[in-house]
């Protein structure tokens, strides 16, 4: 089980090289809709980190952060990428 501080340091987007804390700060500093706001984090048009990032955006919108949920979604994506690189497909 990770601590809140450890989760805030987890990388949520490789393209924009941002961790959870940075994503929260960026979303907190904008009122743009998700499609626009996410580009401030990812600095790209891709959607590889969509599931976790959208969750963080929604949590910011509703003012309640479930850090375990964020960590779970990031880890789940990494696990999936690992499976794919191991030839799961």
């Amino acid at each position, binding site marked *: 089980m990770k601590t809140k501080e450890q989760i805030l340091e987890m990388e949520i987007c490789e393209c924009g090289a941002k961790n959870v804390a940075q994503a929260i700060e960026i979303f907190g500093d904008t009122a743009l809709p998700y499609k626009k706001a996410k580009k401030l984090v990812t600095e790209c048009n891709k959607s590889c980190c969509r599931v976790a990032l959208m969750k963080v955006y929604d949590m910011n919108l509703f*003012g309640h952060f479930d850090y375990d949920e964020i960590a779970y979604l990031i880890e789940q994506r990494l696990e999936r990428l690992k499976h794919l690189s191991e030839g799961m497909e």
Partner: protein
Amino acid sequence: MYNYEWDRLRTWLGQYGAIDENITKPEEITRIDLSGNSLKTLPSNFALLSHLSILDIRRNSFEVLPEVLGSLALRFLNASGNKLSDVSILSKCQQIRVLDLSANALKEIQFSFLPELRSINLSSNFLKDIGAFLPSLANAVRVNLNNNLIENIPTSIGSLTALEEIEMIDNRLKTIDEAFFKLKVTNVNLSSNRLVSLHLHTLESLEVLTLDENPFKSVTFSKNFAPLLKEFSCDSCSLEEFLLPPSASLEVLCYSSNSIVEVPKEISCYTQLQELDIDANKITDLPDTLANIATLQTLYAKGNPLNPHAKKVIAILDPEICDLNMKSGITIETAKEEDLKEMAELLGVLFAIESDFTIDFEKQYAGLKQLLSYEGSNLLVAKHENHVVGMLTMQRLISSAEGSFIGQLEDLVVKEEYRKMGVGSRLINKMRALAQEYGYKRIQLAADINNENALQFYTRRGLKRTHLSIYHYLIP
């Protein structure tokens, strides 16, 4: 009569905190939450739960859905976040209506037709060929197939006659069978795929179509395509041409991050258009006809080399929200002593709207000064170029209803020229985050019932209107 198997099951459920101590008979159990354990299977005496209709086993370690599920009358099953590769037992769950199998290791679906199934989530699996199992979902209304390895939408999609919403984001779609266009779907999202060419037609019930992040070389429409279409999005699709879907009901049109050079004058045919997103393109000019769309409230046009004429068109259009008008560099900060004067002046703007209060700078300044030094309070300001342009305060109260601390929000106000830029939302979001950090059980506020804008603003941000009214008595 003593039921040994029931006693064992009770003990087993008890160790996961999944049973209420008041339950005396297995028939009393209708829902069970076993999420977040390391379960690999369920005990066979689970079959005693003849009235169980809602089962949550997400985030466990199941590789195969247990046999015993086939003997239950389940209507809702959440098995997300396991390691499932075999869900064949679901063929026996003929009453199931809602099924979440997302984030598993499914490479194929083995269950047969489920007549009651209405909603299924199969996202984040490893599904490649969906042709064989789609008929099993024939009565499904919502289908989520995001984040799989699907390369084509097969002919069998036509068997989903009840389908209303389908998402297939993050797949490898290259082709779509003609049967798809005959569906009665209302919402379709095919973003982040590999679609290169698409001829859109029919889809007579379609209201929302999202095709973002596809490497299109050609997108064309038939005149009969989606007459009820309200939202069409084609962001980041390498488009060089502004597409004009034939629907006259369009409300939202998104072509952000493409290579569009020109917005055609025919855009004025969308008389109900509310939002237009053309940011990050190569547009230099805008047609005069754009200014005629009286319904257009939101325009994103940043990241284009707009000429003076285009800017004039936007000025005439004067949309409520426009990214070109948004000021950057607005920060949300904790208020300091030196901000208090500007804050007190800002309160005057608020009290001018609220008939219950009178404007008195000295009183407001004194109140804010007291608040700043009060331990259980938070004062946030929105600042631009070192000036206060918005503010919000929160005071800690003790609620006997919640049995804990709650936060009372007050004094939310944003300077006129900084409205419609999301400053109020940012202040509320930041304050809510602080309330969560302090462990407050609730935040609440009072709003003037005549301030319609404020009431709508709070409702849109998830605050619920209560049945309480505020009374006050001024102490002489």
